[in-house]
Structure formats: structure tokens, C-alpha cells
């Protein structure tokens, strides 16, 4: 029995799974995440997180970069990004190695 992960280890390298991609939706003027039989609207934070997520960067590096770009507290960024990425992993849209 695995509990829902609330966050990721700093060393984990997350990425979107094949068949999951972001797209700018011109009609609705927003970024969306397209996945098998699912479409998620991405807010600015969600899009920023996925823009840094490429399977190469560790979660710690992603948080560092977001904290620097948005001049925001690292703890807060780690919490938001960790929760968001963990939810995508739970839903089989992303993985972390």
C-alpha cells in the first residue's frame, strides 16, 4: 500500500511520460497539459514547473531555478512544485527516476 506522495526527493529527476505534453491553447488563451483521455488547464505556476522539467534536472535543481526566476521563497516553491509533480506521477502522467 503506497500513500500519495506529497512531494519528491531533491535528487529525483521528474519528466512527463510519453503521450503527455503541454500545448498553448490559442482559443482559450492558456497553457494546457494533454494526456491520454485527460486535459488539464495549466496555471502560470504549473506551466513554469513543467517548463523546467525535462528528465535531466533534479527536483532540487528545478526548485532552485524557479526560486531564482520568480524571486520566491524556496520552501514555498518546493511545496507547490512537489505537490503538483507528485499528483502527475499518481495519475500516470509523469515519472521520477
Amino acid at each position, binding site marked *: *500500500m*503506497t500513500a*500519495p*506522495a506529497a512531494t519528491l526527493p531533491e535528487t529525483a529527476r521528474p519528466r512527463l*511520460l*510519453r*503521450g*503527455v*505534453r503541454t*500545448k498553448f*491553447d490559442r*482559443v*482559450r488563451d492558456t497553457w*494546457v497539459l*494533454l494526456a*491520454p*483521455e485527460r*486535459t488539464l488547464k495549466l496555471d502560470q505556476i504549473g506551466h513554469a514547473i513543467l517548463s523546467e522539467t525535462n528528465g535531466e534536472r533534479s527536483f532540487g535543481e528545478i526548485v532552485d531555478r524557479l526560486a531564482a526566476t520568480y524571486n520566491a521563497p524556496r520552501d514555498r516553491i518546493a511545496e507547490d512544485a512537489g505537490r503538483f509533480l507528485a499528483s502527475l*506521477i*499518481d*495519475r*500516470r502522467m509523469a515519472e521520477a527516476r
Partner: protein
Amino acid sequence: MNTQAQPEPAAAVQARPPMAMLAELTHRCPLSCPYCSNPLELAAKASELGAADWATIFAQAAEIGVLQVHLSGGEPASRRDLEEIVGAAHAVDLYTNLITSGVGLTERRLDALVDNGLEHIQLSLQGVDAEMADRIGGYRGGFARKMQVADWIARREIPLTLNAVMHKQNLDRLPDTIELAVELGARRLEVATVQFHGWATRNRAALMPTRAQAREASRIVAEARERLRGVLVIDYVTADHHAEYPKPCMGGWGSTGFNVTPDGRVMPCHAAHTIPGLVFEQAPGTHLGDIWRHSAAFNAFRGFDWMQEPCRSCDRKTRDFGGCRCQAMAFAGDARATDPVCIKSPLHARLQEAAEADAAAEGAELVYRTSPA
């Protein structure tokens, strides 16, 4: 060819842009499942739209906000130009999902489909062994073929969803169905209890699950979702004739998606033709944007103004939209009535009694779907 949506006065209800479309590329299918959601009157091969028309339709769909296209049938692989059709959807950046039984796919075709931009496959499952699956599908060797196709999909790491239609005869194998989905490497499993539209209406006595089966299925799904978190996502369509409240059919009529038939008629759902008086415009001759915004059929049950009591004053109406219009038509003889699944419907007791009687029936013969001309 009409490629430009006409500016028109606002419709009675403002429609948000559609998210998804179901493209029924053909009604032809090697299988003859007794619960097929295709209409009883199937579109003939000679009436099918060509690949160029589908390309025009996809371009119009993308223009009005559609993000995902579900390529379905019948069996879409029965079309020799499926690869070209996938390419046309991909060319306008639609997310492409193939809904297939697997029969008609080869390794070479799978490679071509992926090369042309196919992103995901939904593979149907009629049972967890050849005896059950081939009998329900009415196609000997179908299960073995499907397992072969599932292996080819896994080797290519193409994202896979299994769609298992469940009913009286196979619900007791639900745990094995979940197990098989994990073994085949599926990311998602749809446990779809049969809905009684189309061909299933002729097989109520053979397919209606018992209340006990429906309850046990809910328990098994809840347990498996917890146990398989991060491994397998399970979508669950319940046996609504045993429920107290209706399903939010289509997420609301004309609110999120539409269906295009093999001959190009554009409908709010795949059973909408069962409602008398609705007229369905033809794509691509009429632009999808015009149809989505202005079709009387799409506007017929949008919003809440069409509702009668008890829906009109019900606080659940924003959640379930009064349920399924086609089911209201079928049982109440009035498409504006409350879905008789709802406990507030005067027909609820009769619907449940009929369901119990069909669930208790034994030895009913399957009536198989036929082939289009």
C-alpha cells in the same frame, strides 16, 4: 467548401469551445459485440467520408478549440487510410487517441501510425480469456490477436488504456481484469459497466448486472485504486440502473464535446439520433463552428432553461445536468424529463424493477450486432 465560421447573433445559451471530438471513422467492425454503442441502423461503407473530408473536419475542430480527437468506429483499423487520417489530425496538433479492438492492426501499421503522430491507444477488452472474450465479441481468435497487439504496443512503449466493458457475464472476473491491465503495462483502465443504449437495449436480460455485482464492483475498484496508486489509473462507469442519481451525461449536453458519424453527421452524443425531431448538420460542408454554436440540436438541452420539474428546482442540476437525455427519451418518452435513474423521477421504481428482473433472468441468448452494408 465552407471554411469560415459565420458571425451570428449569440445563441440562447453561450457555448464554451468544445474540448474533444469522437470521430466514428466507420461502422464496419470484425467484432459484433452485443452492447455496441453504434446505432441499430449502421452507416454503409459507401457513405463513409474520405480522408480529405476528415482532414477538413480536423482543421475546423482545431480552429474552434478542440484539443483531443478520439478515432473510433466500428473498428477504425478497418479503414486502409487510417494512417493518413491520423496524420491529418496530427498536422493540426490535435491529441490523437485510437480506440480499437486491435483486430486489423499489424506491427507495420502500428509503426506507421506512430510515425504519423498517434499518441495513445485505447484497446477494448471483452473478457480476460479467449472463451469469454471471443464469445462476447462474436469473433473467434479475437482475444489471442488482441493479446498479440497489446504486446506490440508495449514493446513500442505506446501509452495504453484498456477499456473493459463489464456486465452480468464478466463482472465476476473484475479482479482478473485489473490484474491483466497491470500485466499488459496499461497506464489506465476503464471499467465501463455496460450502458443500455444502442445494441445493448436488445440484450438487457443477457447483460444487466445484479445489484450485488454492481456493489461488489464498486468495492473492488475502490480497493484497487488505492493499492495501485501510481501504477494504474482506473476510470469507473457504474451500473446506473442500480444507482440513485443519474450520470452527468457528456458532462452536459453540447458542453464539452461532439460526435461525428462515418457519413459526417455531427451529434451531441452517439445516441442523440434516438431523440425524435433533432436534425443533425453535415460536416465538413457546414463548418463545425456553425454547428457547435447554432445547431438547434446542440442548443436543445444546453444550460438549464429546457428543464422541467423536478430538475428545474433541483440543486443537483449543476452536477448531473438532469442525467442522460436519451435515457429520458427511451423510458419517459420525453427527452426533457428527468433521467429515470434519478430517485426523484416518477419512473425510478419502474426502471429499477425492470433492471432487477433483467439481472435475475437466466440463459438469455446474445443478440449480436450486425454488419453495415
